[in-house]
């Protein structure tokens, strides 16, 4: 893992902020264009709110961009434009479905976008060095745990659509699970930095695989139980799956032992089998996945009809019927895109997500410290898993589990949490790409200290 500083040829990193600006302009043009397009097809005119919408989006993008210039000049230039594009398209689609349903939730989502960007800025300003977060390992763990338990508490916990994952505070509702994701990644990373050597020790060799020792199974067992707890008590299949896979991914990165993946898969299959056998709500999900047309107007059926209706090129924004899909602004928003932008548009969106994931993993590769590597890899893979689980569920590849599509779905907590995650990723990226001072001759003393450690 160690990045060698002994090489003579020094790559001089460029800040690439100019590239970011160009990409941002493209993203903004597409997002505002989509908004105008919706107005023209649905209302026959350029919407009066275009100026407000465009100005808000531009200002927010500029704030984020300037913050990067000032506080993280060497951060990855692709991530922010990708996020702005997805966020902007999401807003346009939410506005489009608002028009069909004669409601107004897009403005709310725009407000949440602003809060998200502010949090993004706050992350970059407050965290000068991500390694400091390592000191917060157990605090983060506690915060993550509390956030997970919060919806179960009486009075403030709320059950919606069968899942108890909401919290009502001062008239506002939150999905604390989205924030828990960030806290838990920090916890897992901090924990694994310390424990990775123990967990990486060879255990039994079986069928060509290094399986861990039985007494090292404690942590993964706990993560498994916690995920099952989320599934059982909050009935939140998606978060449960995400939580467990995050831990598994980080364990694998920290130890490089595929044996953990085998153990994890075995636990996953056991958990999936158990919950299918024991819990009615899981069986219902599987049943609806296998028989999408059994009830008229079902979520999956309407999404599939919408996708077929959209075909390869899509109906065009405002020309489809995505309002027929339930939760078409939140969980199923990708179905609305597949219908109106077609397979082509869906491919673009999926590839933008893939770009975010791969850029995140690239940061993990480039990062010079274990803690940063783990966080970057964990957060990047959290997007990959979340996108797979929610879009796979909505489009009928796997049973529907109910997660938000990052940056696109209507819903404040998710949006804000994901902006914060991007802020942290860019902080790590900046640190990774920032030019190092030429390596000072290593003194005997420091080597001795390193060995002692």
């Amino acid at each position, binding site marked *: 893992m160690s990045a060698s500083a002994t090489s003579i040829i020094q790559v001089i990193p460029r800040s690439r902020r100019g590239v970011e600006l160009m990409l941002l302009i493209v993203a903004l043009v597409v997002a505002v264009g989509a908004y105008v397009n919706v107005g023209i097809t649905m209302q026959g005119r350029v919407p009066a709110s275009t100026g407000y919408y465009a100005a808000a989006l531009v200002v927010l993008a500029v704030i984020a961009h300037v913050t990067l210039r000032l506080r993280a000049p060497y951060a990855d230039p692709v991530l922010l434009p990708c996020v702005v594009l997805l966020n902007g398209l999401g807003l346009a689609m939410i506005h489009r479905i608002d028009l069909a349903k004669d409601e107004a939730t897009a403005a709310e989502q725009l407000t949440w976008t602003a809060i998200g960007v502010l949090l993004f800025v706050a992350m970059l300003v407050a965290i000068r060095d991500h390694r400091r977060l390592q000191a917060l390992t157990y605090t983060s763990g506690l915060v993550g745990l509390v956030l997970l338990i919060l919806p179960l508490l009486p009075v403030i916990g709320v059950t919606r659509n069968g899942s108890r994952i909401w919290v009502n505070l001062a008239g506002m509702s939150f999905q604390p699970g989205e924030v828990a994701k960030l806290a838990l990644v920090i916890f897992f990373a901090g924990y694994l930095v310390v424990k990775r050597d123990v967990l990486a020790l060879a255990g039994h060799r079986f069928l060509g695989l290094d399986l861990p020792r039985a007494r090292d199974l404690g942590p993964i067992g706990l993560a498994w139980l916690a995920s099952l707890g989320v599934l059982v008590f909050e009935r939140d299949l998606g978060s449960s799956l995400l939580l467990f896979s995050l831990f598994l991914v980080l364990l*694998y990165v920290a130890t490089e032992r595929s044996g953990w993946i085998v153990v994890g898969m075995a636990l996953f299959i056991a958990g999936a089998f158990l919950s299918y056998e024991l819990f009615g709500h899981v069986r219902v999900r599987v049943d609806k996945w296998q028989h999408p047309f059994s009830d008229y107007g079902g979520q999956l059926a309407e999404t599939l009809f919408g996708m077929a209706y959209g075909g390869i090129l899509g109906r065009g924004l405002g020309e489809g019927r995505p309002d027929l899909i339930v939760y078409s602004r939140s969980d199923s928003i990708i179905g609305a895109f597949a219908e109106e932008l077609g397979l082509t548009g869906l491919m673009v969106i999926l590839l933008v997500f893939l770009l975010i994931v791969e850029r995140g993993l690239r940061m993990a590769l480039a990062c010079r410290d274990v803690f940063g590597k783990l966080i970057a890899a964990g957060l990047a893979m959290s997007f990959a898993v979340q996108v797979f689980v929610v879009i796979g569920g909505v489009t009928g590849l796997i049973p529907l589990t109910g997660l938000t599509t990052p940056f696109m779905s209507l819903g404040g907590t998710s949006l804000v949490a994901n902006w914060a995650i991007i802020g942290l990723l860019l902080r790590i990226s900046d640190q990774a790409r920032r030019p190092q001072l030429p390596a000072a001759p290593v003194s005997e003393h420091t080597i001795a200290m390193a060995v002692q450690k």
Partner: protein
Amino acid sequence: MNSAIRRLAVAAIFLILALLANATYTQAFRADDLNGRNDNRRTRDEQFSVDRGPILVAGQPVAESKPSNDRYVYQRTYANGPQYAHVTGFYSYLFGRSGIEQTENSQLNGSDPSLVFRRLIDMITGQRQQGASVTLTLNPRAQKAAYDGLAKNNYHGAVVALDPKTGAVLASVSTPSYDPNLIASHDLGKVDNAWQRLLKDPDKPMLNRAERETYPPGSTFKLVTLAAALSTGRYNKDTQVASPARMDLPQTTADLTNHNGRNCGGSDNATLLIALRNSCNTSFGRLGLDLGPDALRDQAEKFGFGERQLPELGGVASQFPDDPNQPQTAQSAIGQYDVRGTPLQMAMVAAAIANRGELMKPYLVAAVRTADLKTIEQTKPEALHQAVSPEVAAQLTEMMVDVVDNGTGRPARIDGVKLAGKTGTAQVSDSRPPYAWFVSFAPADDPKVAVAVVIEKAGVERSDIAGGRLAGPIARDVIQAVINAG
């Protein structure tokens, strides 16, 4: 650690690839299947928003889409709804399509592959997609005469008129009928009510009796028996056949009797001409026994029995029993027992005789044209079988003219027009009133129209003359409507 991260990068690519593959399957390969499903609101609503082409009869629409101000852009309306109901069918949001609306759907809504060029132009010029028009072969005056003849008397029955030279359907009516406008309405509550009422109606108004219901053809089937006899060369119109009042059916205690309980033509023997003129059951029963069931079936099939006719309207096949014994053969020869014919089929028998023995394939769609009147489909008349030789056809014609001039078909006579015809009554059971039949064509020397009329519940009188008296005038009106128009 880096190798693990690289493997994760590959894993992430596979996750997204799986999503892409699944979406591609749904949106590119499974799309047609999903779009075609009945529970797909999107495609159903879209179909309802298409400017559907009209169904035309002699240039006038009998079904057309008119701009509508309610939840859909167009309202399908049917001029003279009940008159054409079983031909046009209906186009309903809740209950799908029937009739020509169903069989020509892809042309009417403009989705047919033959219209792809037209659609492209519409797309480029920004026009709404417009469906093609379907022109039917029907003659509006014949259709009206047929419908009025049945409906005015509250008859349950059917009329089919064909152009014997081409097979074009000139009239196709079934009563009682219904108004397709009720089913096509956008007031879905009312539509559902109307639908339930029509379904529960014991008179089955939505049943197309002309092409989709078979009846025992009764004495009109004697034309087939006679054709089979003449085709052997051993018979002509002057051949003497037995014509007693009562004929002992072999292997049974039952007898075959004539309608009036007397012999035909005043003696126990008569010529075939006299036997047909008086529709003599005993003569034709005997003839059937002499010819045998295979000869009868062969002849029936040459007239179109055993094949589905006019699939455009879901026409069913008429039947001659598979393996009748002797008494059943005798019964079959006079159109009883298990012989079943659609009104269309019996019109085809008359039409084949009229067309010098050549049976033409019946058809209903004359042409399909785009909205800008470019013809994209034109039906060419097609021969099905040589049912009988021209000589036999000539003899049959002569004898059928005699039936109208001197026999049971007298009620259908038209001054100045040589009419060939054959009456029939068919009993299903003693408790049910018999069916009255009349098949005919005219003018006999240059046939322009062949007509079959069937009336259910034709009163209590069971004599063969009832067929002529009830059904004859309707056939006459239809024939006059066609001849006078031409």
